């Protein structure tokens, strides 16, 4: 990727670059899911690099960079540095980019657990032993959480960027959204394991609303007490193994959840 050329903030329309690392594309798709705003949004920005949408590729630097996906290969560990160097404001989106994603489960696997049952020629693959968030490699200006992100929150982040203000993204727990939705508490009333008390709001309490426990896809809320929740789940009958698994999910690599899952892991 070249960093030649000069677009810069003085340009009337800010330039946008969207980058994909190890991910499912779902967060980019969430941008495209803003059907009613999409054409206005794409019209307010110069789309300089967005492979999912256009063949047009314009050299950086870029005003706004949106990064989806985690860093899992030596080549990507270099590429993210080039992306950072070419970007004025870098936003990471989704659980992969902000916490390593579900593929971060490899971080806990022993070599022996990843047996090449299907895979015949390991020499062809170049992969790091860990899946890490973008922030482990370069400075990130804003992180938007979710697996996937909420398209409305992404719209808020981009709008705030265009307006030159800070985005209003809550980091209080899912419980607050769940109460607002008028749900009966699954944890209290039915003993269902639910990560709502320790997970950041943003989804609108989707899972409790359909009667299942939150599984933490927006990552930890601010100032949470994961150990206290674990004690409560254990009192309701959850085994150490299931406590380990519940915190080791789509945001396994988020520090608060990583610490809590490791507390319940017999293998250090």
């Amino acid at each position: 990727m070249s960093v030649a050329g000069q677009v810069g903030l003085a340009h009337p329309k800010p330039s946008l670059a969207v980058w994909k690392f190890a991910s499912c594309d779902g967060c980019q798709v969430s941008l495209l899911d803003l059907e009613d705003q999409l054409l206005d949004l794409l019209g307010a920005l110069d789309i300089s690099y967005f492979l999912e949408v256009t063949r047009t590729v314009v050299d950086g630097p870029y005003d706004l960079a949106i990064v989806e996906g985690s860093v899992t290969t030596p080549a990507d560990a270099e590429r993210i540095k080039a992306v950072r160097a070419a970007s004025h404001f870098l936003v990471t989106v989704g659980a992969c980019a902000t916490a390593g994603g579900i593929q971060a489960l490899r971080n806990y696997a022993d070599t022996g657990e990843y047996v090449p049952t299907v895979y015949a020629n390991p020499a062809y693959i170049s992969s790091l032993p860990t899946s890490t968030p973008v922030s482990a490699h370069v400075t990130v200006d804003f992180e938007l959480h979710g697996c996937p992100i909420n398209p409305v929150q992404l719209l808020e982040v981009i709008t705030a960027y265009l307006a030159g203000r800070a985005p209003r993204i809550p980091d209080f727990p899912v419980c607050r959204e769940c109460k607002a939705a008028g749900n009966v508490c699954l944890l209290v009333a039915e003993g269902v394991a639910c990560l709502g008390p320790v997970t950041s709001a943003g989804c609108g309490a989707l899972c409790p609303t359909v009667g299942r426990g939150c599984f933490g896809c927006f990552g930890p809320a601010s100032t949470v007490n994961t150990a206290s929740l674990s004690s409560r789940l254990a009192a309701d009958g959850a085994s150490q193994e299931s406590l380990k698994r519940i915190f080791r999910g789509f945001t396994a690599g988020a520090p608060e959840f990583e610490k809590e899952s490791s507390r319940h892991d017999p293998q250090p």
Partner: protein
Amino acid sequence: MTHSRDYAFGVDALARVEGEGGFRVVVRDGAVSEVALDIFEPPRFFEALLVGRSYREAPDITARICGICPVAYQMSSCAAMESALDIVPSRQVVDLRRLLYCGEWLQSHALHVYLLHAPDFFGYEDAVQLAAHDKPVVERGLALKKTGNKIMGTVGGRAVHPVNVRVGGFYKAPSPFEISALAEPLRRALDASLATVEWVAGFDFPDVTGDYLFVALRDEGRYPIEGGRVVSSGGLDCTPAEFADAVVEEHVARSTALHARLFGQKPYLTGPLARYALNAGALTPLAAEAARRAQLEVPCRNPFRSIVVRAVEMVFACEEALRLVESYEPPEPPAADMPDPEGNGAGATPGAERAGAERAGAERAGAGVTEAPRGVLLHEYNVGPDGLIRHARIVPPTSQNQLTIEADLRRVAEAGLELPPEELTKRAEVAVRNHDPCISCAAHFLDLTLERAP
């Protein structure tokens, strides 16, 4: 335009496809000597990370393989798990799954037809340029996509990685009131999809014919979506488990995806062209009529005309979804009773763990196949008596199509050797895009031995 008899062309990073890949074509002595679809999407090792997780987590975890077709992953994983655990979902559950899946077909096809594929037929770089020349048409595409997403939101809880799907059925059945609210947007979407067929049928298509072996599901006279037997244009007719045995994958240097062959020999094609070739007679009336008016032959062997087949399938998805909306009965209970060994932590009722452990006996195996928008998606699992996954195998449509896409690249390159290189490169790009490859999916089912420094 003359150029040397030895040259190579290609694209390092293909635009307007899902995931990251490129292609290369080498010409020697004026003839195509080598073609390769390169997949360099980083592998995410799903088959390895599923091992040791609860069978109940398979739909949620495998959904994360693909943000465009998460429902396909949820449905194939549920089908495989239900086969392994002898769970038979109710007719109402099957109908509601079919409705959810219609939503995914509609949003995925609308995305591909309008935002990814159509710009090629006008020489535009993207749908933004298309919108600058014809805004209403792009708005029509976005409205179709939105309706698909609305179905997924209503039934599944959200459009990307729905939360309401579980092995055995759903966590909560949507109310009849919520489902009936889908009827109006679906009627408008039906009109819009009929207009889409008319629009794309008028595109200018290169005259290319592929000699395809088609593979698709067949489902008792219905157009196949969420289940059925696996059939081929070569006479194959088998169960999902037999299909799992017939598909042999090989690993090659240029790709982080595996290449699939049937019985280890024949490359084949799955997806809209194959579904249409093997099931055209099962289309709903308006979809069949739209295909006839678009002069879509059965089978259609011109890969560039796959956009017409996708548009016809959008008509089908709207008609079928409308029928399911109008006949909706909430499944009661919303999910089949099932073993719950070890719970799964989140969402489980801890008290059920012990009861479940007694019900689950020895290790069980099951395979499931459903029709993702891009073609048949196979899942295969072994589940231990503790309810934890022992083995997982996932064969997505794009890895099945990879060899056929390369054959198409060769065909298109050979037919276009007289074209200027830039034009030929563009046409070759479209030859790949014709099959709506989902490269994130294809790259994500490798297993790996990690080497760590001591």
